[in-house]
């Protein structure tokens, strides 16, 4: 793996030696896993619909249709998922909810990725006492009731979507840091790092060019498992009324509203709930597939 990555990063003048890289191998293995492939397709279509749908669909997400208050799904009237208690088109609102959930998932995971990878790589590469202190800090953070702190943050600074991004990212980086640190510890003693050090590459560049690219496998697997987790936490907060605020919506808000009306209007619960469940399922299957694909030891 290390050698392959080296070739890629040093240039393309050795193209005639066509080895199969770890990534090609992993991709091939991933394609064999049917659940993952199906999940990828489903997830991509959902994202595509959520992104494009609201542009094409004529109904705005916050328009109240007075003749259709809490109407059941009706194809002819154009309300595929029915309307909510305020007479707003639930289909369009669900699409907006998916957009928000996905956005939160991606951005917060991105934040956690940046913090976690940097922190872990430095901790593992520097080692010694620095490593000890840095990891001790992670241990302490781990034992905190984080969900409660996120709620605390929401209470204090108001319900701001950017705050959700930051708070969730700040919570989720811990495991990422541990994973990368473990990888860095084992990579830093390998010959190619020693060679780089001997030829005078700076520590920063060694971390950037050698440590991080070689730690990517487990990181990617963990990223696919973090995204659904973040989506889940955001929905949880929104469900409690502490997340995204009206008239904007998210899947958690929709599920919470649906749960209150489920006896008279079960569709207001079922559609957003299934959307969330399907998204979470897809991410989990993709994560499992990636883990199997990138970690051949388990086969």
């Amino acid at each position, binding site marked *: 793996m290390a050698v392959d990555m080296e070739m890629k990063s040093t240039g393309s003048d050795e193209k005639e030696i066509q080895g199969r890289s770890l990534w090609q191998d992993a991709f091939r293995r991933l394609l064999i896993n049917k659940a993952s492939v199906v999940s990828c397709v489903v997830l991509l279509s959902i994202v595509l619909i959520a992104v494009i749908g609201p542009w094409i669909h004529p109904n705005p997400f916050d328009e109240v249709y007075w003749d259709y208050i809490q109407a059941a799904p009706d194809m002819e009237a154009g309300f595929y998922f029915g309307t909510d208690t305020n007479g707003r088109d639930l289909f369009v609102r669900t699409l907006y909810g998916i957009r928000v959930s996905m956005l939160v998932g991606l951005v917060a995971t991105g934040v956690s990725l940046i913090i976690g990878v940097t922190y872990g790589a430095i901790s593992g590469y520097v080692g010694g006492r620095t490593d000890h202190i840095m990891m001790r800090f992670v241990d*302490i953070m781990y*034992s*905190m*009731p984080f*969900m*409660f*702190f996120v*709620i*605390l*943050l*929401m*209470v*204090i*600074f*108001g319900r701001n979507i950017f705050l959700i991004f930051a708070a969730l990212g700040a919570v989720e980086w811990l495991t990422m840091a541990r994973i990368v640190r473990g990888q860095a510890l084992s990579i830093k003693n390998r010959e190619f790092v020693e060679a780089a050090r001997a030829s005078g590459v700076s520590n920063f560049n060694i971390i950037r060019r050698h440590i991080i690219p070689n730690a990517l496998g487990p990181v990617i697997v963990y990223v696919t498992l973090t995204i*659904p987790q973040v989506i*889940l936490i955001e*929905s*949880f907060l929104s*469900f*409690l*009324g*502490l997340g995204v605020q009206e008239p904007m919506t998210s899947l*958690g808000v929709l*599920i*919470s509203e*649906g*749960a209150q009306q*489920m*006896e008279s209007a*079960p569709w207001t*619960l079922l559609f957003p*709930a299934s959307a*969330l*469940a399907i998204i*979470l*399922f897809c991410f*989990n299957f993709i994560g499992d597939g990636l883990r199997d694909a990138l970690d051949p030891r388990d086969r």
Partner: protein
Amino acid sequence: MLSFILKRLAGAIPTLLIIVTLAFFLIRSAPGGPFDKERTIPPEVAANLNAVYHLDDPLWEQYLYYLGSAIQGDFGPSFQYRDFSVTELIAAGFPVSLTLGLTAIFLAITIGVSLGAVAALKQNSLIDYAVMATAMTGITIPNFVMAPLLTLVFGVYLNMLPVGGWGESVSQAFLPIIALALPQIAYIARLTRGSMIEVLRSNFVRTARAKGLPERLMLSRHALKAAMLPVVSYLGPASAAVITGSVVIEQIFGIPGIGRYFVQGALNRDYTLVMGVVIFYGSLIISFNLVVDIIYGFLDPKVRMG
């Protein structure tokens, strides 16, 4: 053993201190005071209120004051429920939350371990696939989705169980406990299956079988004990998850536990209440982790008590 326990205890104290400190300064950096929502009150009254709640002292004095009383279990008065102290509210809600949480964890362990063990013994059979598919569903679908769905099916459509309330009949507790336990059942089943499969391939199980030990005894005396280790170490995170989950479950089913006060407090910006609950649950999770660590130390001879 004693030094091991003492060492873990000593490790828990700084964590607790950080929790209290963080909670205190986060709350105090909040824009707006707790009395902002009231009708405009005369300045003298506001000054009096601030004096009673120590809001006009310097920040670090307030912090020390709060720290001192928090150590004695006094979290101050609730800003929202004027006639109660936070400690009283927590004390009122705790028995309910504890019953709910402990029953859920107990259910999760018994059902989860049995399902996982059966799946491991019948690996790659229909039972195995059924258990694993159910587990996947249980892990993936969050309990704030599961709880309303369960209510819709069993409470509304089938009309078998009451959909809310607490303490009037035992059947009221069914749905909330199941909704709370389900993800943990799923997780423990998956853990048990994995470790059980590994244990069944190990040498000591082969030895036990070779010397003619009946399958049942082999399982109960050897395999299950070894396979339980990952489950025991998962109990720490599980308890944290159950506590977090109970916040939602109590809200959905209208159960008068701590979680419900917490959400109400959060929505009403009831600072002292929110802080009290964060600290209380924080220490609860830390002590639970401590107990789990110690139990694990007893069970696994490989853990050195240094």
